[in-house]
């Protein structure tokens, strides 16, 4: 039974981590890159505005960081909950 509760705790920790990561994922691309771009128009970056940078480069960089962060955090979580591969 305790093993089952631990598996549930592992899974909800994973789902929470996924939701946070996806919120950032959506914020930088759909948010800063597209919908919120007019709000960022005051911040100049190399001849244009910050929203343009997010749409063409910034979001890609954040995506990279997100995936490596998730992999690192999950592999740690696997060990903490004893569900890693031996």
């Amino acid at each position: 039974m305790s093993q089952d509760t631990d598996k549930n705790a592992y899974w909800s920790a994973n789902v929470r981590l996924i939701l946070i990561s996806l919120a950032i994922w959506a914020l930088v691309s759909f948010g800063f890159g597209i919908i919120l771009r007019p709000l960022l128009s005051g911040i100049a970056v190399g001849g244009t505005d910050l929203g343009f940078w997010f749409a063409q480069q910034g979001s890609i960089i954040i995506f990279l960081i997100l995936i490596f962060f998730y992999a690192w955090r999950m592999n740690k979580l696997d060990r903490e909950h004893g569900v890693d591969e031996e």
Partner: protein
Amino acid sequence: MDQFTLNLLFVGASFALYIGIAVWARAGSTSEFYAAGRGVHPVTNGMATAADWMSAASFISMAGLIAFTGYDNSSFLMGWTGGYVLLALLLAPYLRKFGKFTVSEFIGERFYSKTARMVAVICLLVASITYVIGQMQGVGIAFGRFLEIDAFWGLLIGACVVFAYAVFGGMKGVTYTQVAQYCVLITAYTIPAVFISLQLTGNPIPALGLFGATESGEPLLAKLNQIVTDLGFAEYTAAHGSTINMVLFTLSLMIGTAGLPHVIMRFFTVPRVSDARWSAGWTLVFIALLYLTAPAVGAMARLNISELMWPNGTSGEAVSLEQIESDPDYAWMATWQKTGLLGWEDKNGDGKIQYYNDANEDLQAKAAENGWEGNELTNFNRDILVLANPEIASLPGWVIGLVAAGGLAAALSTAAGLLLAISSAVSHDLLKGQLTPNMSEKSELMAARISMAVAIVVAVTLGLNPPGFAAQTVALAFGLAAASIFPALMMGIFSTRINNVGAVAGMLAGLAVTLLYIFLHKGWFFIPDTNSFTDADPLLGPVKSTSFGAIGAMVNFAVAFIVSGMTRETPQEIKDLVQSVRVPRGAGTAVEGH
């Protein structure tokens, strides 16, 4: 040595390398054919997946589409990279834990239904074949250019090469070949970009040069905005299209990326679940190297072309016909004219070629004043921009040869990966899994090769009348994958409630509604003039056919939930299967399905 020989030399040498590797690592058994015996390191796997993934659409077509539209086509950049976040977080580790060879095997077992597996195979085939059409377009353009023949003949020759190449080996041959192809394509993409960035901004890193300043101190993008608006075109960095369409288009490309069978298959080949997570990250690292450079390539090429057509500035005289014919800086125009993808015409007979937007009212007034009779750069196919880029910037001959080799590497590696996915769907899932379960290994391999041949013939036939530029055709394939495969996989892992009937109904609804929307706009089976709507004036407000995949995916989710709610609950053993997929412990090597 002339340019033609130099191109042949580079292309020939790169081909010899790939074929050599393919022969050396030839697949012996079916398990090697599909999944490379699972001995692939995450970094190697990431590099091979990046080559597999970055196709003619990314290499040849994407920067051209960005160059001529600017900000509005940022969707390609965000969409085709953002999908990896979904893949890494929502699919890759679980599918690796499940441990089978193909996507449809997972769907078949999770939804305990042969019908579900069949439907998944159909979805996969529809998306993959549409994707191959886009690749064939790219192959045609690349071969057309370097053999200096019409793109039609380029397409036919290219198809033969792709076929010969893909039947050589399975995934293992392909994995190491694709590592070599990645190296060729990234070098070919980066070197000309570095040269051009140095010429225009003095910064050797194109991604930084894009936001840098030109010699005069004016930012590159501000200068570009000025020139294109002077010529009556839309401002480069500004948003012009519908926000809703852009969001849906980006989302379709993201979900589609995470639903493409030939990409997902890659994550079955890493040794462990934790490696599947890392592998998605490494793949994106190698993809980002190209994707961070692409917007710079687009903007800089647009600037170079505009300045070439208006050598004395936009208020001076346009380039003369005589200069185009004699000046070596314009030699690329004559070579590309031979492919039928670039054309110009001196409409007003003044001996000059005026390039401007003749649909713009201000420019029409200016044209009337100066006696211009319409835009005279009459044909500029977006798909030639990247391949022509080094010539436009007058770079040395070896760079041009390298780019030709890179473009072919991109198109070939993806075409091969897709053909592998198609052949495994037909021989492994359809024939061995359903129709003739007692098939021998030998006849399974034979069936795999025959289905590759059929897929190529279909793709070439449809590729002769493509539904858009290469990247747009490919975007349609992503819409189809987004609407059918991704929702089924995600619900299979994250919800125990979705049952067999729900999943089948969801996939069918998502695929049908998306296919219908695409055919209504692009013609039935992409046959020209059978469409009822156009993407300029779509059926649903601003939603273009390339953006519909996201809506199709929502339909899929909704139908699956509603139908599952009305039918029998998922059996306990399937719930246990879902629970076991969710934890990494106990992941063995994959076993062959039946």
